[in-house]
């Protein structure tokens, strides 16, 4: 019997070859016709432009969306394992999760009341 970790190693090697090979192949044989839109940051937040001299305005919406995302992200992160072990955790788990959900609603309420969703 071989070491049980050998298949994992093989899998890692295959993954590395696929990932690196794909990038390398497209770099070598892919067509290169760049334009402004293609060179822009892709799904990576605000436009990477320098600040206007003397400050200026900057779009705040990105940060608000990010904060809202964190609230629900954390919520879901804990909901999944709870759902898997729902039966075992029984009433204790249910009460604990309800408490957690109530607490995580607090920052959401804060954001809503302080105008975090009034964008227009």
């Amino acid at each position, binding site marked *: 019997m071989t070491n049980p970790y050998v298949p994992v190693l093989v899998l890692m090697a295959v993954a590395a070859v696929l990932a690196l090979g794909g990038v390398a192949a497209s770099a070598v044989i892919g067509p290169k016709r760049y334009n402004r839109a293609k060179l822009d940051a892709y799904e990576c937040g605000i436009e990477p432009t320098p*600040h206007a001299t*003397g*400050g*200026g*305005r*900057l779009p*705040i919406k990105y940060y608000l969306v990010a904060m809202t995302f964190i609230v629900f992200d954390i919520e879901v992160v804990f909901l999944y394992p709870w759902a898997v*072990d729902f039966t*075992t*955790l*029984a*009433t*204790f788990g249910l009460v604990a999760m309800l408490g957690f959900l109530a*607490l995580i609603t*607090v*920052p959401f*309420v*804060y954001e*809503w*009341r*302080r105008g975090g969703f009034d964008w227009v």
Partner: protein
Amino acid sequence: MIPDFTAPLIDWAALAPLLVVLGAGVVGVLVEAFVPDAVRRATQITLALAALAATVVLIVLRWGLIVGSDGAPGVSDVLVGGTVMVTPFALALQGTIVVLAFLGALVVADRTSSGQDAFAPTAAAVPGTSYEDLARRAGLQQTEVYPLLMFATGGMMLFVATDDLLMMFVALEVLSLPLYVLCATARRRRLLSQEAAAKYFLLGAFASALFIFGVALIYGFAGTVRLIGDEDKPGVIRRVLSGDAPLDGMTVLVVAGILLVLVGLLFKLGAVPFHAWTPDVYAGAPTPITGFMAACTKVAAVGALVKVLYTLVVGLPPEVGEQLRTVVIVVAILTMALGTVVGAVQTDIKRLLAYSSIAHAGFLLVAVAGINLESLRAVLFYMVAYGVATVGAFGVVTLVRERTVVPGRADGADGEDGVVLGEATHLSQWAGLGRRAPWLTAAFALFLLSMAGIPLTAGFVAKFGAFGAAVAGDLWWLAVVGVLASVVAVFFYVRVIVLMMFTPPAEEQLLAGAEARAQEAATGTGDEAEAAEASSGAEPAGGGVATETRTEVARTVVTVVGSRGPAAVAIAVCAVATLVLGVFPGPVLELAGEAIKFVP
């Protein structure tokens, strides 16, 4: 699937102190959401102070239960299946944290006679922009400070009272994240404040990462993150001693893990070589926050350090324990040396206090390195003595301000015109403070004397205890190093006292005559030249000319603003505590003695 899950018993009454503080934080966030602007600040202050006061009462009640009457613990200290473990020692630390947080919150709440608190109207605005002016004129205020304070305090209370390394990490984050945000909220010197927050956050994140990496290594070795554990679930040391650890024999793994955990804790403590953030952050953060942070975080960090170190050094095989002890001794010596030597050449009062706090971390580690019960008692007393002196000293710093002088007035030293600006933190601006505000200066001098460890102040008893603990642990030479370091430290504390009490104020020196001034400027080394530069430091371009053409260019003078009450109360309480603990340390030492009965 979890094989056999049994819900942990939760003793709500025992958790009450922690829950009240964290609950006040949550309610504070809701207050931010629903209470109208006009009464929001008052509501927040009331809520925060009431919660902290209630927590003190709850801790005192709990103390009676847990210490017991006839030498046996009244109630179990293991709560929630061991994730919370409130031993008398932990409870004493929690009490210290909450009392210091209460005093710190009083300083935070004070608006002073200038009518402004220490926090930016909107901390999110880019410094120096019109948006910032707009927010200031609209009278916006950042009352989120109070819930953040509550969360930080709650994190600290949990940090010292857990047997579970993972829970310790969670507590570390709960106490750190609010502090990072609070550091960025200073009303004045916005860029410096934001720089401080960024530095603190980045370095703190690294320290946290190292901490959790260490926990991972310990878990890999022992298969548990509990330190002591109980019969059903043995902790790290029992696994090691019984040879029951999954990776038994690879002791290097657990040593590496413990060292990484220590890095995370020593960072929070501000010990060399993990001290680099301290001066910048202490100087950049709003001064009331600096006071809170310097006092309470240090108590929490040293509490967690003692917990980890004492459990493991005593529990692990002797050779491993000795190695860990050597690490603490080396760090203690480095910390004392750097704190005192670099502190002696500082010219900014906040940076000076920051280096002083580094030096104090060193003295604390001297006590910790003793590894005996005497050490624990010394640590407890030291934390109280250092904490009140620190909160008080930073409280005084918040009241010593710069004020613009209206052009055309000759002097303005006694006038009430002009706008009160930020704190006058340059040491030369503190010259002659004793004449302007004798009581405030006396209190500040008292705090400095206590930090220096002069007899009849709390600091003396504290240092005596710390060095005594080292001697009791057969480290008499380390105690000698400690005494030498405190002698050097006395120099820079006394330097400030002499400056405040016996040196004439900068303005008088400036008026002393053009001839003398020219002479001083020519040599370039005189105090006057330095003072002239500093007192006009607020105008970047004005520089030295400000003194010559006083009638045309606005310049600033040092002024002492009056407290609206809270800060004055905090400073007075700290001063009285410093004196009383110095003259009659008995009762507190007795309490500390009771706290170490059932360690760890």
